[in-house]
């Protein structure tokens, strides 16, 4: 098993209710890993990234415990067995 995606509540309507998705793909970067996720569950894509492919401003993507905003964005390398978390930011009103 190469990577595991952790899916937040709102997006589970597009993952058949699953909060944890394992992928056999061996992506080199977070961007590649997410492409695999979109292929499996297309509804997740436009909720996480804009039509220009950028992670939405109020969505955080973590590899392990580190936000990719501080590690090179979608080019952040992904190690074998990594957990990739998609988490809504604590913003709102």
């Amino acid at each position, binding site marked *: 098993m190469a990577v595991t995606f952790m899916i937040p509540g*709102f997006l589970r309507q597009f993952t058949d209710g699953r909060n944890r998705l394992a992928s056999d793909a061996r992506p080199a970067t977070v961007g590649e890993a997410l492409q695999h996720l979109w292929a499996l569950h297309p509804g997740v894509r*436009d909720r996480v990234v*804009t039509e220009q492919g950028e992670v939405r401003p109020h*969505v955080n993507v973590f590899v392990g415990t580190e936000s990719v905003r501080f590690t090179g964005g979608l080019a952040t390398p992904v190690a074998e067995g990594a957990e990739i978390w998609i988490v809504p930011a604590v913003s709102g009103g």
Partner: protein
Amino acid sequence: MVATRQITVKDGDVLLLVGTMKGAFLLRSSGARKRWEVGGPYFPGLSVYAMTFDDRAGRQRLWASTNSMHWGAVLRSSDDFGRTWTNPESANVRFPAETGASLKQIWKIRPGRRDEPGTLYCGVEPAALFESRDAGETWTLNPGLYGHPHRARWQPGGGGLCLHTILPDPSNRERLLVAISTGGVYRSDDGGRTWNSRNQGVRAEFLPDKHPEFGQCVHKVVLHPARPERLFLQNHWGLYRSDDGGDSWQDVARGVPSDFGFCMVMHPHDADTVYILPLESDEFRCTPDGKLRVYRTRDAGGSWEPLTRGLPQRDALETVLRDAMTADTMNPAGVYFGTRSGQLFGSSDGGSSWTRILGGLPPVVSVEAAVVGEPKPVRTAKKTARRALKARAPKRVATARTGAKRVVKARAKRVVRARAKSRSAPRRRVKTAARRGRAARKKK
């Protein structure tokens, strides 16, 4: 998870489509518009800036734009009055890659002309117009407006740089008018291919040049289908009328407590009647003097009168946003508005009197009205009085037999009621004057 209530809609019903910062609500009533059944919240937690009802080509389709601060905006539709909604996997309104832009908010959904039942428009932020020619299946960016040389100098207003008003000319397929905050009014006379600013006479109070070609912060523009060349405009300071399709504008702010405000609504049957809800100023965007007043002109902006009956006139510091006021198409017309404080007010007599329909909602950002199927004639107070008079006049003369039957029935009812009462209440032994009288007569 909050439970969503559903409503059952019948032909002739009036619907209110209420979008809030935390979900949408549907209210239904008969044509009398006295009692409202409430459905919702739909999309709890998502903001719903725009809703509309498309009843062209045999459809009965609701549209809603839902937006999540986290997960983005999408257009959703329902063909069963809110029981089920589409939830497209891919965002259906999206900027092409070459623009480099990404959608922030969908501010307006607008069905096209009745004789173009496949056409829908939506106005978005960042300011752009999208069109659908297949009844909302697919949407494309209007390249003419997006490529306009002015666009680089449009500036965001308080709500963002949005295209919020779309007015297809019902009598001219080539003419379409939009309004942008802040960009101003733009009109196309060739079916949306090219666009020209139409702001002559409209002040930009917040700029050093008070009358620029564009850059005005227009809050709302309305037209009446019977007189599409005449437009009314609520500006960020200023009320205007145009008699030439927007080529020039005249100030019509006479007798209003403030010419600042967001919303503006056209009467469905009278091209001279327009409603606004003035706010104190851009500094203090609340109703002046704590009085919640709708203002109405019935002479095309010649004068404005306050409408206050049934609306709070003390301690009501309310804000009504640009799309939070609407009118239905009934006769007499219904006028409705929602406040940022989550209250919904309505009038079923063209604004003369108002009632609070609902409170406790999240902040209201959009209100639309729709009549389902054929509207049924409305019973007005006058009509009801006439009917009551007729009913009182004996239609059939009661025969001795039917009359006797009625008396017996009524007496039986009284007896049953009296028995029920005597069972539930302790028997009264106090002699009333009447009883004493009866007893005295018996003795005699």
